[in-house]
């Protein structure tokens, strides 16, 4: 038990890495996913097809496979990333595919009449996107996206397999020293639980605030 208490600072360090990885992945995948999502809906036919194909493939494979693909596959192509950035890249690609789906779901669930009403009063396409589509899409996008944030945090645990010392790896290393797997795994589980449960509670609060949009 003492050994565990002594290792707390080390675990907190790992926690910091976990949060850092999660934050970067969430932020990058949001930008990439939204851009590609808009491309998927409004882009020219070949682009839509390409994004659709890539997004389906990425969502069709396990995250672990994607991580290995990035980690082992990039060096032969000449790109040498550290474990940390290889893992972040893989997780970002994975999450982006999901964000593309959230965007697609959000925008296509807006009734066609909205675009028409915007056209009827003389708004041009960028104006229609900005004043009519985007505000409504946002409210439909947020709930699934916020749910997806906890998936990013859980997915970040896989970076431990590449040797990145996040919370998961920190736990493994402490177990290596203290030979007490169970209490440490439970402690780790509770820490992950604390992060994700707060995130999902926050998301429920936000969802309620925007729910007045339900028609």
């Amino acid at each position, binding site marked *: 038990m003492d050994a565990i208490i002594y290792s707390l600072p080390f675990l907190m360090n790992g926690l910091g890495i976990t949060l850092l990885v999660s934050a970067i992945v969430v932020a990058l995948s949001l930008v990439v996913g939204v851009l590609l999502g808009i491309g998927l809906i409004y882009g020219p036919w070949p682009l839509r097809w390409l994004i659709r194909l890539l997004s*389906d*493939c990425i969502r*069709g*494979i*396990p995250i*672990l*496979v994607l991580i*290995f*693909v990035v980690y*082992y*596959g990039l060096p*032969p*192509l*000449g790109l040498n990333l550290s474990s940390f950035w290889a893992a972040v890249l893989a997780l970002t690609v994975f999450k982006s595919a999901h964000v593309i789906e959230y965007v697609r779901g959000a925008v296509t669930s807006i009734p066609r009449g909205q675009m028409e009403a915007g056209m009827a009063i003389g708004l041009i396409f960028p104006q229609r996107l900005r004043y009519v589509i985007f505000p409504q899409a946002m409210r439909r996008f947020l709930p699934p996206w916020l749910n997806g944030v*906890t998936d990013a*945090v*859980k*997915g*970040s*645990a*896989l970076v*431990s*397999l590449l040797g990145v010392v996040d919370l*998961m790896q920190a*736990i*493994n290393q402490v*177990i290596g020293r203290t030979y*007490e*797997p*169970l209490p440490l*795994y*439970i402690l*780790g*589980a509770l820490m*992950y*639980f604390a*992060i*994700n*449960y707060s995130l*999902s509670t926050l998301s429920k609060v936000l969802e309620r605030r925007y729910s007045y949009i339900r028609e």
Partner: protein
Amino acid sequence: MGYQLSFTQIWTNFDKLAEGLLLSLWLAFISILIGAVIGLVLAIWYVSAGRVARTLISAYVEFIRNVPLLLLVYLVFYGLPTAVNISYSAPVSFVVTLSLYAGAYLVEVFRSGLDAVPKGLLDAGKAMGLTPWQRLLYVRLPTMTRITLPALSNTFISLFKDTSIASVIAVPELTYGAQWINNKTFRIVEVYAVTTVLYVVTGYLILFGLRLLERRFRVER
């Protein structure tokens, strides 16, 4: 660049991938069966139980849903044997973990499925004189099954992908097979290209197969 694509070594070792794929499907299948039993029992209990039971069930669900699967796998495989005097093989331990994992998600699926049974059907059952237990068996469960089929198929496909985590405790499923070939031949691009195709195509085949099944059991809304 100097990297020549060569698939020959992949084909000579293809049995590792094929067997791994079958094992992945098998693991997912058993886990969803056990998980469905867990989920169904807990869902029925939840709907008809008091606050204590509901809190316990919610605790189980929330715990599993907020903790990484990897950690759960380690917990069950390395952690439990030190406390409880059991020892099991990696595949068994993984099935235990994945079943508990599936169970937590399926509790939610079945719970909302039970709620979605149209009240009119229950009224008809009451009017016929069916007891609560009979209404459960003959009205609610059959209707709920049809309603939840789409969610069940999605869960199965998810579980199929989640079986790749088993590779970290050396269960010889598909991802493990890919890693094995990679370590032996260093043909990364080829191995993972084939593995990706296997996962994606299998996923689609399962999806279409289950869609056909769903169509046979569609509920008119």
